[in-house]
């Protein structure tokens, strides 16, 4: 059997479903191909927030803000509920040097018009009554710059809403070959277990698996799987009122700053960055870390131990709350920490939209809309040439 589509999107995570929805909305006959189920990869093994305050000042933050506001618009428009909620975010600073560095970051963001502000210990303890009393302060982002969603429901929502525009999804789809025109090298068709699919446009949204699809057309896509782990609590009191992250981790990662947190060797070695949030089902999500482990997504006991150790430093009352579940997944890591949202010069009709690492959920609506502009041959809403695939050839 041969099917024919205007566009074929590969990968049904937060990026692929958004791209597929936006292409279908623009009137293209679109197919979404997924090797497993919808949202079965990174988008169901992550946390659930979109923030501007974990982004670098500039384009990174601008994309975040765009996406956050666009999420709100979609939440109103969609019949499918994806648990959209605006909430505040606190980047907690354990010590004075962290507070000072956070303040520098705040000033840069303020200069661009983002209303972040510093809160000192007293106010922090009022905002977060369960936090350790000796935390120095925090960087506060109001709900204008922070949202929560259910990441996998975002994917289901894009698919269900996309169906209204004729989107067709094919799950458990094995792609065995991508055929290019021998003369022009442009996209011609795909061979799958659903048969041959003819199309002139393929958008590779396979995240950490995007390099496998790239290989089928002779491209080397520099994305690596980076593992992250979260712990889930039993249903309990919402220990926190805002999304909580630790600032010291971000600082220890900044280039050119020689900063070391006062943490145990286990926490250091496991690369733990404490974060905490509540969900609409009243579970707490406690995280997290980043490790290179290939595609091995088994939960590691040492990681669990290290996350708990770090979490108790900030929220001692967690000690008596039960953990019922853990999960680990891979994030699509790119060395310059920017996604690839781009066409490919050497293969007309082939597009890459992947490599969002930990920002895929946040950037999903923004990315889908911009990718649709690119595929339609239009200007993007603002200059995103930094996300071009050609940057790796230089």
């Amino acid at each position, binding site marked *: 059997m041969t099917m024919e589509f205007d566009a074929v999107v590969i990968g049904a995570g937060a990026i692929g479903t958004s791209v597929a929805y936006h292409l279908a909305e623009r009137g293209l006959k679109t197919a979404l191909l997924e090797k497993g189920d*919808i949202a079965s990869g990174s988008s*169901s093994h992550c946390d659930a927030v979109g923030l501007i305050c974990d982004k670098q000042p500039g384009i990174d933050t601008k994309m975040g803000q765009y996406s956050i506001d666009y999420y709100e618009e979609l939440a109103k428009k969609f019949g499918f509920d994806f648990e959209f909620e605006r909430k505040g975010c606190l980047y907690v600073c354990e010590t004075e040097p962290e507070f000072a560095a956070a303040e520098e970051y705040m000033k840069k963001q303020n200069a661009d018009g983002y209303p972040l502000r510093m809160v000192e210990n007293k106010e922090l303890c009022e905002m977060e009554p369960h936090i350790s009393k000796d935390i120095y302060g925090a960087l506060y982002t109001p709900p204008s710059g922070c949202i929560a969603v259910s990441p996998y429901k975002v994917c289901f929502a894009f698919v269900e809403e996309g169906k209204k525009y004729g989107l067709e999804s094919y799950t458990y789809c094995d792609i065995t070959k991508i055929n290019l025109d021998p003369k022009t090298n442009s996209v011609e068709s795909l061979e799958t277990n659903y048969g041959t699919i003819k199309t002139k446009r393929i958008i590779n949204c396979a995240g950490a698996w995007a390099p496998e699809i790239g290989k089928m057309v002779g491209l080397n896509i520099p994305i690596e799987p980076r593992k992250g782990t979260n712990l889930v609590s039993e*249903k309990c009191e919402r220990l926190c009122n805002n999304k909580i992250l630790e600032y010291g981790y971000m600082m220890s990662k900044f280039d050119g700053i020689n900063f070391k947190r006062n943490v145990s060797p286990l926490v250091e070695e496991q690369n733990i960055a404490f974060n905490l949030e509540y969900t609409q089902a009243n579970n707490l999500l406690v995280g997290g870390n980043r490790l290179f482990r290939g595609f091995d997504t088994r939960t590691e006991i040492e990681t*669990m*131990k290290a996350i708990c150790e770090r979490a108790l430093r900030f929220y001692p009352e*967690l000690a008596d709350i039960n953990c019922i*579940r853990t999960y680990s997944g891979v994030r699509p890591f790119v060395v310059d920490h920017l996604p690839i949202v781009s066409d490919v010069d050497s293969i007309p009709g082939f597009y890459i939209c992947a490599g969002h690492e930990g920002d895929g959920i946040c950037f999903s609506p923004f990315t889908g809309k911009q990718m649709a502009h690119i595929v339609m041959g239009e200007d993007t809403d603002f200059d995103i040439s930094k996300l071009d695939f050609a940057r790796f050839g230089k």
Partner: protein
Amino acid sequence: MAEYFSDDMIVCRCEEVTVAEIKEAIRQGAKDVVGVKRRVRAGMGLCQGRTCEKMVQQIIAQELGAKPWEVGTSSARPPIRPIAFGDIAKGIVE
């Protein structure tokens, strides 16, 4: 056995998920236990599917005309029973 389940019967006690909701998840494209779990939370509660997983398997098998062992199980993940975050930090995880 699934043919004897009425639509309003609660299958997942922890998350209060009914037979009708599980059937709706299957209609939306769930083909296995994890797919149902992700769409309607069956198996996401305190017992992590220990009570309902077999019933969820039977319902999926019946709806899709498959065998119960063909529709998968939820992924095996620690902890094997609820354990306090404090105990995990102390290394009491066995």
